């Protein structure tokens, strides 16, 4: 069984697919969306998170760190990230929870063990497991191992993908995935590259590929003001979804394609700080209810089964 880095397992996750679910967040994503609320999922390696507000400056971390990444000067603790080798001894002795290790190597069986704890809840609610990230498509072997075991145990499966991974990787997951949820952030390749660090051709190709399967598909767009809430950009996304719906229809497929709008929020901002990363979306405010409702109406007018999540 494979092993990989997991940064969080969220139980009673009810907005990542139908029913009561457990969402497993895998570490590593090739996109760098500046509004991302899960920055701890970006890097495919362990990172130390430091929450200064929780630190009581006891100095235990200074005592145990083999790489001198912690300093205590006149009662003030400083974390020197560039020296950190993610050894982790400091986390064990940190009594206040100021230091946390982001990323835990887990085997697929260990992940499954956590998932199966809530099986009765999936069974009663039509829920299951969702792999998210990060990008599960970048950990295809690990993802496949988890999902195969879930299928064997009778747990319904879903994947949340940003679509920026190889088609081959995604294809290996199709047989073990009951539902795909895929982000569509922008249609204009240049603007997509500017906002996320990558062009969107591969994403759109993957979307077409998934639309050609018999798997239900939910497209999702995080509505980020000034990025994709403009009518022109948004109608492009809706048009693309409509095109894929037509493709399915032409193939005689009855598998659903639906669409969810997610409002941008700033709940992840303190995580940037804890990771020593710069939060570059602080100037953006969440979209208003009116904006969300207008966009929803545009999508629905275009014949797309959409809702706000």
């Amino acid at each position: 069984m494979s092993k990989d880095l997991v940064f969080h397992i969220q139980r009673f996750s009810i907005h990542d697919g139908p029913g009561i679910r457990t969402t497993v967040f895998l570490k590593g994503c090739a996109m760098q969306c500046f509004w991302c609320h899960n920055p701890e999922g970006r890097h495919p390696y362990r990172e130390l998170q430091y929450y200064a507000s929780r630190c009581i400056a006891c100095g235990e971390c200074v005592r145990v760190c083999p790489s001198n990444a912690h300093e205590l000067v006149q009662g003030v603790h400083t974390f020197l990230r560039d020296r950190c080798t993610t050894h982790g001894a400091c986390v064990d002795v940190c009594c206040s929870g100021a230091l946390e290790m982001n990323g835990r190597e887990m085997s697929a069986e260990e992940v499954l063990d956590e998932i199966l704890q809530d099986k009765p809840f999936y069974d009663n609610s039509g829920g299951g497991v969702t792999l998210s990230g990060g990008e599960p498509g970048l950990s295809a072997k690990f993802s496949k191992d988890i999902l195969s075991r879930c299928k064997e145990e009778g747990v319904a499966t879903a994947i949340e993908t940003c679509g920026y991974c190889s088609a081959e990787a995604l294809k290996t997951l199709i047989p073990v995935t009951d539902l795909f949820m895929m982000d569509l952030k922008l249609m204009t390749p240049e603007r997509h590259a500017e906002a996320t660090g990558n062009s969107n051709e591969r994403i759109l190709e993957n979307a077409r590929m998934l639309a050609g399967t018999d798997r239900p598909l939910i497209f999702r767009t995080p509505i980020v003001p000034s990025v994709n809430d403009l009518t022109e950009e948004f109608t492009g996304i809706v048009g693309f979804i409509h095109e894929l719906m037509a493709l399915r229809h032409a193939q005689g497929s009855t598998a659903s394609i639906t669409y969810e709008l997610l409002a941008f929020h700033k709940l992840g901002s303190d995580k940037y700080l804890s990771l020593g990363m710069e939060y570059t979306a602080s100037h953006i405010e969440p979209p208003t209810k009116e904006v969300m409702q207008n966009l929803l109406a545009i999508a629905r007018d275009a014949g797309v089964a959409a809702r706000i999540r």
Partner: protein
Amino acid sequence: MVSASPRALSYQERIDLLRATKKRHTEEKWRVLGSIDMDDNGIILPPLETLRCVEVMGGSGVPMKDALFSTFTPKSNHPSGGIFGARACGENYRALLEMHPTYVDPVSSLAGCYMVNFLSYRTPQWNPDFDYPHLRPEQQLYGLHHGIGAVQHFCQDMTIGLSLGWEGLRRKILTFRSVNTDDEAQELYDGLEHFVLGMQNWIGRTAAAAREMAASEANPQLRENLLQIAAINDHLVHEPPRTFREACQWMLWYQLSGKMYNMGGSLGRIDQFLYPYYQRDKQLGTLEDEEAVFHIACHFLMDTSYTQLGGPDSLHEDTTNPLSYLVLEAAHRLKIPVNVGVCVGEHIDPQLLRRGVEIMFQDKTGIPKFLGVDRTSEGFARNGYPMTLARERAYSGCHWSALPGREYTVNDCVKINFARVFEVAFQEMMDDAHAQPSVSDLWNRFEKHLRRAAAVIGESLDFQIDHMYRVYPELHMDLLCHGPIERGRDASHGGVEYVNLCVDGSGLATTADSFAALEQRVEKEERFTWQQIAAFLKSDWEGPEGERARLLMHRIPRYGSGRSCADAYASRIASTFTTIIKEKPTPRGFNMIPGLFSWAANLAMGADVGATPNGRHAKERISHGPNPDPGFRKDAAPTALALAVAAVQPGYGNTAPMQIELDPGLSKGEEDIGNVAALIRTHFDLGGTQINMNILDKKTILEAHKDPSKYPDLVVRVTGFSAYFASLSPGIRQMVVDRILAGE
């Protein structure tokens, strides 16, 4: 007052007016009495010119004020100044009823309210002639809520009263007075007859007051209503109710008389015993559903007692009926603290659960609660009773059920504080010069002391049953139970068929986490020695070293995190406690039933316990009921909570209720209703017995905590009971806030 108006008020408008009146009454109570850490019982203050305040001890351990009539002084029959025995209690209570002011609100369809607690007139509460010095040292050592002096907390059978009426009850007393001629019976009959005569006087005076008000009422709709109230109450002085409205009025009088007598009166299965009246009126075409909702709402405004909706009959057929939904609707329209429980089970209409969750989402008042009736019935049967009987137990109190009219229980009155027992065991081990301290030694001592605490409880309960009838008999409940009148014995003294005494464990998480923290930090990791821990506890984690140690001991995988050492200890404590309670009855042979529940008494219980190894400071509250401590998991996953609480159920029919706080963010739509309904159903499938739920916005609760008066309408489910947030003392408010903020 409503002025004369050409347009008749709708039922909803009348509900809104009555709610505004209740709000005024409630705000007056806050001004005069301060915090009220218990059920919002619908009591209103006596007229200010006759109001006298006394200090009493609240259930949460915080002293509180209570209001009495300065114009009423009961007659003591004992040198201590107390009032003891059925005759004296009945005589004095009758005198109180006969002087109690009448109350008629022209907007309501039902008359009556109560203004004082008779209990607060009775000092001392316990008759010093029946002293128990042999029990007291160990009761104090373990901080036991031992049940001596416990009142009510079982369930009457309302159909007895509805079918006989007050005069029928009096005739029944007279009949059996000539059958049972011993002194005990004769004294009981005296007490009961006084009770009934007092009620008849109160109701008759109320009818007259309504008629008088009608004479000067300008609004024709209200005048007509007042005349109806007068006619209904004139009828009810002697006769049993005929219509749905009359049945509601009779029920309200019974409840008011119980609330005032000893805070008793549990509604139980209101949708069943009122259903024949509902059906009759519907068939005659004299009752619309809107009107039925209104009458129920008028009742809830004056009495918020505990009600079960739906549930199985003795043969496992679902009894959910249209009235079940109307009662739920009344609670929904009112948005005041009421205690409506919705049954959830294999054979029960799933729409009732769904409607309950919808209302929970919409109103955000912690209403309704959810009852896992299949599990409680199966559990009760394990005491040796047939399932057909077990299914008749009706939900009628904070966390409890009882067989209507047939069972004496002292539910929710008897508690063993695990944290205190743990502290005794820890102290003993550390003081033992020959001991090699270890978790296993500590566990053995804990088990030994838990067994001893349970034995003291058993002896205390026997003492209660031997003496309570001569102290403060259950006159109110006796009237509507099967047996007390027939046998001439108080319900607490052989009057009813079954005695199943409730014994609850409290402080489960505090204790389980303490064991686990010692095992991990002292034994496995060797970060501290036993002596260091003992010193930290003694000094209440003093100094920077103490604080560091406290945080480390606190930061272990705690009970509720899932498959942790603390989870294992929680299960072990719960099952050991269950075994101990079930291994033998009380010395006199009365069955005891274990549950896990602290009510809001976890504050008072905590004040009695020094610092504990789970990082808890001395005197801080202990954990609530069977729940993990707030912050038990970073994601505060409700499924993890539901699994944890399901795993510690004692399983003999008494509950270990899950208290759960959900974020309003998840109540977005239909799908979320389905998911929460599935969460509830699954908890019960896994063994859970009851759910108390809040859906509250963190920002609102924080602002309300800062200045409660700005949120006079905010209703929360504190524990088994529901209350206005602004009514609560700061300590209880803090507990609610901490629960809601956990997982931040």
